[in-house]
């Protein structure tokens, strides 16, 4: 993944805005931002992270590649859509935030210990294995994300929630020993591989057609 990173640095030679436009989901919208501040001001997570959308978009234009791709901001977005409905320029801010997070992973620059990032990784691994989300295993791996002792504490705190989920058939304790799967697991994996292939080819090719 990070040879990808060097390649991109080489290809765009400091024009990070262009790089974002070509490679990040909805990235071509970034230049439409007029820096009014409504998105950051409206974001419920705003007070708790390093850079809000407004700042990130300015940093992209200023070519702050390393800072943007290592930022926590894109990982903190909860998709509440407050910013999207208020942005006077109708930027698809939420999607750009997720696009940036995804791109940061591809470049190998995403923050290593960012909890949402970890959750996303776990969620993905979990899903990829059997084609279905195994809530029990996902939950357990999450609890132990910060180590064994923390995990036990969290698990105890969340016990009523888990029991509730079992009661309402949202989670099956037997999942720990196997769990439900998609029927054609091999086909599912082949499908994922194909998707990755297409995605990499797209990145290889550089700018999307019509992105100019």
């Amino acid at each position, binding site marked *: 993944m990070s040879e990808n990173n060097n390649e991109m640095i080489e290809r765009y030679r400091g024009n990070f805005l262009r790089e974002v436009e070509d490679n990040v989901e909805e990235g071509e919208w970034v230049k439409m931002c007029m820096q009014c*501040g*409504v998105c*950051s*001001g409206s974001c419920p997570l705003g007070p708790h992270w390093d*850079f*809000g959308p407004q*700042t990130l978009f300015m940093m992209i234009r200023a070519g702050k590649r390393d800072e943007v791709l290592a930022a926590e901001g894109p990982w903190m977005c909860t998709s509440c859509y407050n910013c999207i409905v208020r942005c006077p*320029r109708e930027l698809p801010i939420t999607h750009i935030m997720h696009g940036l997070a995804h791109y940061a992973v591809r470049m190998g620059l995403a923050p290593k210990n960012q909890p949402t990032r970890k959750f996303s990784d776990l969620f993905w691994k979990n899903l990829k294995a059997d084609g279905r989300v195994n809530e029990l295993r996902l939950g357990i791996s999450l609890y132990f994300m910060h180590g064994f002792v923390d995990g036990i504490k969290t698990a105890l705190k969340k016990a009523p929630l888990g029991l509730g989920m079992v009661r309402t058939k949202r989670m099956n304790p037997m999942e720990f020993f196997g769990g439900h799967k998609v029927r054609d697991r091999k086909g599912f994996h082949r499908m994922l591989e194909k998707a990755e292939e297409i995605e990499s080819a797209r990145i290889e090719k550089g700018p999307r057609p019509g992105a100019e």
Partner: protein
Amino acid sequence: MPEPVPGIEGAGTDQGVILVVGGGISGITAALEATEAGKDVILIEKRPFIGGRITQLYKYFPKLCHPVCGLEINQRRIKASPRLSVLTMASLESLRGTAGDYTASVRIAPRYVNDRCTACGACAEAVQAEFNDEFHDGLGLTSADRSHAASDDSSGDSSGADPSGDSSTGPLKPARRKGAYLPYPMAWPERFVLDPRIIGTEDARRAFDACRYGAIDLDMTEETVELKVAAVIWATGWKPYDAAKIQPYGYGRIPNVITSLELERMMDPLGPTGGKLVRPSDGLPARNVAFIQCAGSRDRNHLRHCSRICCMVSLKQSTYTRERYGDEGEATIYYIDIRAIDRLEDFYRKIKSDPKVRFIKSKVANITADPRSGDPILHGVDTEGYRRYSNPHDLVVLAIGMQPSVGGDDFPFEVVVNRDGFIEPDPRNGAIFAAGCATDALDVNRSVQSATAAALRAVQVVNAGTMPGLESRRD
């Protein structure tokens, strides 16, 4: 003023007549320019008086003079123009024909008061019924009522708080007027009006009996007249964007959030607060006033265009706090960027040098109200440094956007409008020429320029008897 209908027929002389629709500063200017160039002109105005929106303004930027004096000069010019007829309470119903040869159908609503009125006011004293006073826009009205007041024909509002000592005058109440009234003290024509809602009631009789000049005519009815006209100048102006639609700013929910137009009404010494700058929630002095720019403008969720006057309006209004409270008055302007161009830039520089006026580069994200003090609190992020703020103020003024007062399907003829609803110059419009804020969001200076241009186009049509250059355009 001559009695309208016979006056018009007299005007139908050997040359084509120019019809001006809308009697704001643009319509008045266009009518005067055309008539002073020797043309016959009929000006029709929907409201019972002429002058349009500027009659609601306290002061003009950039000179900070009072709009009244400009209006007085225009009234004198109208009186000195025998070939200009002014019809109030009139609107255009339909327009048929082609450039140089139109037939206009004009509907005139009954005023129930004829030209013998001396404006003595006896009828108003006799009448008992009261209504919200539409002259003061939404000021003093609460919640739902207020957003209706933003549109042209609602029964607006303001408060009757009395201008006593310097402490609280109590919450602002909507201003009321009688069922027989003069729309505002300087109204021209200086003639009273009977509200149609009192016709057929005991109050109509009371008004009639009170008038010693035989000026009240309860038998007046609506009439429609057909006019032959050569060209039309469309000058129906603007209305404020409905502030209640900008949900995060709480207009209508938070009493201490008002519009820039309401602030103009509040400053009027003869207005609802007697000219006191106060908070609608409790009538306490509003010393620390915030202005929010682009309220409804430059926003794809609201009006897409820049309303162009509101930066200058807030700069002007920032002087109001100083005027009322001296060094205790403060203004804070929250902006995306300040658009004051050409010579107006000097005014901006002057305001900027006042230490009591602060500029914060940020579009406010939302407003909450402190439950105890009623202070509006502005939340957002400052673009210069990306600092988060939550600033309390006494009063918030939304620099409200401008939109055309007539829009969409309301035109009585086919006309080409742009994305924002303003009329475009286009050959397909024939001899219909737009002037002033019907063409774009303009200040008075630019409205007058645009009106003069429209008058010239109309005069050309009259002189040529048809649309000059029409033949060549058809090829």
